[in-house]
C-alpha cells in the first residue's frame, strides 16, 4: 500500500524521544479510551497500480459519447491543450489561497487577470475571484440585492431548474420570498413581469440565453425592473457573450453565470465555475475574494487580496457571505481559455455554436412530425416537439454513440449544438431522428 509518509521507524523513535513520549499512542492521551474508534471498517490500503485499476474500471462503467448534443447547463466545448497543460502546473494546483502576497504574486496576478477578463466580457466594473457554480453565483447575487423593505426575488420559469431549486433553498430560512413567474412563448413577458413587480421586489433574475436556449431582451427587462426600483441580475452564458451585447450595456446590475464552457470539461457536473461581476456601486457588497493592485514597500506594482472587510474571517457573522474556498483553479482555467481564444477566437466559437445550432434546428424542423417549440431567436439550444417520440429518438441516437438532447417530457427535447459538431454529424443525427419520427 502507498501512504505518502516519509519518516522511517528509526526517525519516528528519535522524534518520540525528543517529544518525551513513549509511543505515538501516548500523544493521544487526551482522548478517553471509551471514545476511541474501533479499526475503521474500510478495505486494506492498496498499491497505486491497483487503485488505478479500480478507478479505470469505474470510468469504464460510464458511457463516453462520441458526439454530444446535450447542454442544459453543462456544455461540451473544445478545450485547447495549452489550457490543460498550463493549468496543471503544480505551483498553481497545490497552492493555498494567496494569503501571503509576497510568495503568491503569480496566483494573485492570475486572479487579477481573471477579474479583468470577466469584466471585459460582461462590461462590468468589478468581478470576484469566483463562486462555486453558476447557480450559487446567481443566488448570492440576488441576496446582495436584499434590502430591509424589499425581500422578494422574482425569477422566471425559463431559468435553469437547478438554479431555481438552489434559490428556494437559500431563501427558505431567510425572511425572503421567491416569486416564480410564468413566461410567454419561452421568453420573459413584459405584462407578466409588470404584474410581478412591486415595492417588495429587490431583485429580478433572468438568464441569457434562457434554459430553453432563447435570447431575452435584457435592455427592455432592465428598464422595467429599474423603474420598479429593483435590480436586475442576469445569468449569461460566457460563450454567448462572445457575440451578444454585454450585460452592462443592457443595464444589468449584477452579471453572473456558469463559466464551465470556458475550458472546463463536463466532469459529471463539477467542479464548475460561477462567475460574478457587478457595477462599482455594488463593489463592497459582492461576496468572495477580490484581488486588487497596489504598490509594495519599494513602490513596485503588487497584488493583494483586498476589500477583506466584507469577508468572514474579518466580519464573522456580519460578513456579506460565508464563502471562503471558491473555485480558484477553475478560474485560472477560464483565464487561460479566454486569453488563448482571444477576442477573435471567442467570437469564432460563439459563431460556430449559433451557426451549427441554427442549421441543426432548421434541418430537424424539416422532418415530418417535428416542429420547433418556439419561434424567437436562440443561441445554441432549442426545443423540438415530436408527439410521444422523445424516448425513441434519444434511444436510437444512443445506440449510435450519440448523446441526443435532454428529454423535457414525452414530446419535447432540448438540443444543443456547439463548435464540436460538424455538418456531417448533424446530418447523421437528422437521418436517425427521421427514421424514428417516420
Amino acid at each position, binding site marked *: 500500500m502507498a501512504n505518502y509518509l516519509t519518516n522511517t521507524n528509526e526517525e519516528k523513535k528519535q522524534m518520540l524521544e525528543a517529544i518525551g513520549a513513549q509511543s505515538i499512542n501516548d500523544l493521544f492521551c487526551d482522548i478517553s479510551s471509551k471514545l476511541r474508534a474501533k479499526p475503521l471498517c474500510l478495505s486494506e490500503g492498496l498499491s497505486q497500480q491497483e487503485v488505478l485499476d479500480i478507478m479505470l474500471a469505474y*470510468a469504464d462503467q460510464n458511457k463516453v459519447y462520441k458526439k454530444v448534443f446535450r447542454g442544459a447547463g453543462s456544455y461540451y466545448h473544445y478545450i485547447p491543450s495549452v489550457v490543460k497543460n498550463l493549468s496543471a502546473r503544480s505551483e498553481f494546483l497545490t497552492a493555498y489561497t494567496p494569503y501571503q502576497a509576497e510568495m503568491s504574486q503569480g496566483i494573485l496576478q492570475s486572479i487579477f487577470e481573471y477579474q479583468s477578463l470577466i469584466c471585459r466580457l460582461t462590461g462590468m466594473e468589478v468581478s470576484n475571484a469566483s463562486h462555486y457554480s453558476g447557480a450559487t453565483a446567481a443566488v448570492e447575487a440576488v441576496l446582495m440585492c436584499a434590502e430591509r423593505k424589499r425581500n422578494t426575488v422574482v425569477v422566471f420559469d425559463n431559468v435553469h431548474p437547478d438554479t431555481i431549486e438552489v434559490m428556494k433553498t437559500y431563501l427558505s430560512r431567510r425572511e425572503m420570498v421567491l416569486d416564480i413567474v410564468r413566461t410567454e412563448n419561452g421568453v420573459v413577458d413584459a405584462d407578466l413581469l409588470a404584474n410581478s413587480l412591486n415595492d417588495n421586489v429587490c431583485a429580478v433574475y433572468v438568464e441569457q440565453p434562457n434554459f430553453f436556449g432563447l435570447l431575452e431582451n435584457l435592455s427592455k427587462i432592465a428598464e422595467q425592473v429599474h423603474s420598479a426600483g429593483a435590480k436586475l441580475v442576469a445569468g449569461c452564458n460566457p460563450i454567448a457573450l462572445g457575440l451578444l451585447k454585454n450585460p452592462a450595456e443592457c443595464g444589468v446590475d449584477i452579471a453572473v453565470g456558469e463559466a464551465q464552457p470556458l475550458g472546463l470539461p463536463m466532469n459529471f457536473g463539477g467542479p464548475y465555475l460561477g462567475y460574478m461581476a457587478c457595477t462599482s456601486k455594488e463593489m463592497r457588497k459582492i461576496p468572495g475574494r477580490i484581488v486588487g493592485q497596489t504598490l509594495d514597500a519599494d513602490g513596485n506594482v503588487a497584488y493583494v487580496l483586498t476589500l477583506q472587510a466584507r469577508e468572514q474571517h474579518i466580519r464573522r457573522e456580519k460578513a456579506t457571505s460565508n464563502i471562503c474556498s471558491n473555485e480558484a483553479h477553475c478560474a485560472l482555467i477560464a483565464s487561460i481559455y479566454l486569453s488563448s481564444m482571444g477576442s477573435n477566437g471567442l467570437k469564432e466559437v460563439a459563431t460556430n455554436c449559433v451557426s451549427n445550432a441554427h442549421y441543426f434546428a432548421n434541418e430537424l424542423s424539416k422532418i415530418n412530425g417535428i416542429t420547433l417549440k418556439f419561434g424567437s431567436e436562440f443561441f445554441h439550444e432549442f426545443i423540438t416537439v415530436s408527439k410521444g417520440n422523445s424516448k425513441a429518438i434519444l434511444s436510437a441516437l444512443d445506440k449510435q454513440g450519440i448523446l441526443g438532447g435532454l428529454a423535457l417530457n414525452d414530446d419535447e427535447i432540448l438540443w444543443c449544438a456547439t463548435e464540436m459538431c460538424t455538418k456531417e454529424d448533424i446530418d447523421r443525427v437528422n437521418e436517425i431522428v427521421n427514421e424514428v419520427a417516420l
Partner: protein
Amino acid sequence: MKTIFEHSKVGNLAVTIRPLTVNEYKLDANLLRDNLPLPEVSEVDIARHYTALSKRAFGVDDGFYPLGSCTMKYNPKLHEEIATLSGFCNIHPLQSSDTTQGSMAVLSTLSTSLCEITGMDGVTLQPCAGAHGEYTGLMLIGAYHSARGDFHRTKIIVPDSAHGTNPASASMAGFEIIAVKSNEEKGVDLDELRKLVGDDTAALMLTNPTTLGLFEKNIEEISKIVHEAGGLLYYDGANLNAVMGIVRPGDMGFDVVHLNLHKTFATPHGAGGPGSGPVGCKKELIKFLPNPHIEKNDGKYEFVNSEESIGKVTKFYGNFGVCVKALAYILTLGGNGLKEASENAVLNANYMNANLQDIFDTETNRFCMHEFVLSLQKLKDETGVSAMDVAKSMIDKHMHPPTMYFPMIVHEALMFEPTETENKETLDEAIQVMRDLFDDAHTKPEYLHSAPNNAVIKRPDEVRAARNPIVKM
C-alpha cells in the same frame, strides 16, 4: 511583470478551431456587441506568461507549507491522472443513469467510506467547499427542528476560537449567533455553555481538535449539555486530519459534520478551490439531505429525491472531479493507512512543537494534535518583532508561513500544521529556521521588520489597495 493584456498584439492567435462546416448564421445586429476587448496573444506568449506566473507562486510541491487549519499535505499525482480519465471528465451530468453507473458508484462508495470514517449514517457530496458544507449542515439542523415544530430554536452557539466561516455560515442559514468563551485550557467554558443553552438553542458548532490544536477533553460533557437542552452538535471537520481512525465525530456525540476533501483527503487546494465539503449526519437527519441522493436498487444506482430535503445547494451533484480524487486517496491508504496518516500528522506537530517550546510560548503543556499555536507576544514585547515579521521572514527561507493571528484569542499567534507527509529532515530545517529567526529578532530586528527581503515583492500596501481599489485592467 507584464499582464496578459500587455502581451496582446492585434491579430495574434493562440488557438485555432475547425472552420465552419455549415453556412454562417448571423444574429440580428441589434443583439450584437460592438467590441470584445480580450487579449490577442500567441501560444508561445501564453505559455511563457503562465509559466512565469507559476514561478511566482508557491505550492506544496515547492516546499514546506505549515499553514495551520489548512492541512497542506502532499497531493498525489495519481489522482490527477485518474480525474482526467475520459470516462470521468467527459460525462454529461444529465446522461441517463444507465450510462453513469461508474460515476454513481464513485459517489456512493465515497459516501459510504466517509460515513465510516466519521461515524455518521448518511452523507451528501453536493457542497463545493467547507463553508458551503457548513451552510448545508446548518440548513439540515434548521429543517430538523422545524419538522419537530420546534420553530424557536434560532440560535447557534459558536466558540470565540472558531473559524470565521462558522458564524458566517450560521448567519447565511438564518440563525442568530452567540459566542461562548474559552476556558483557561482554551476549550469550551462549560459553566458559560450551561448558561447559554436553552430552548432557543439550535446547535453548537465545534471543531475537535479545537483551533488551538488541542483535543477538547470535555466533549462528552459538552454533548450532554447541548443535547439535554434539545440542541444538536455540529462538527467542523477542518481538523479531522488529527483523528482519522482514532476517534469518530459520531462517537463523540456529533449529529452533523462537514469535511474538507481538499484538506483531509489530499485533493489539491488549487490556490483557493475547487474544494469539496461533504456533510454527514445521523439517521434522524438523513431525510433532510440535499436532493438528489444516490440509492442502489437491484444492483443499480439511481438518483432519488426526498420530499423533506432542504433542496439543492448547487447545480447537479457538487464537485464530482474532487470526489474522484478523494476516493482514490481513501482506497490507497485504506482504514489503517488513514489512521497512520493521522498518527504521523500528530507526531510531526508534536515534534516541531517540542523543539520550539523553550523559545516560544505555547498555550498549554499538553500534547498537541495535528497543529499547534505559538504566541510571540513575549518576543514582541522584548524585541518589537511581531508574529507577522517572523512569518514574512520565513518567506526568505523558502517556507510558506504558518497561519497568522488566528485563533483570535491568542496574541501574536502563529499556527503551525506540518502535516504527515513532511519528513523529519524538513521539520528539522523548519525548526532551525524558527530558532535562527528568534536569534535574529534579538540581534537585527529591523531585518525582520522589512522581511521578506528576497521575495519578488516587498510587503504590499494593503491599505492603499482597499482605499482606492484597482480590481481590473
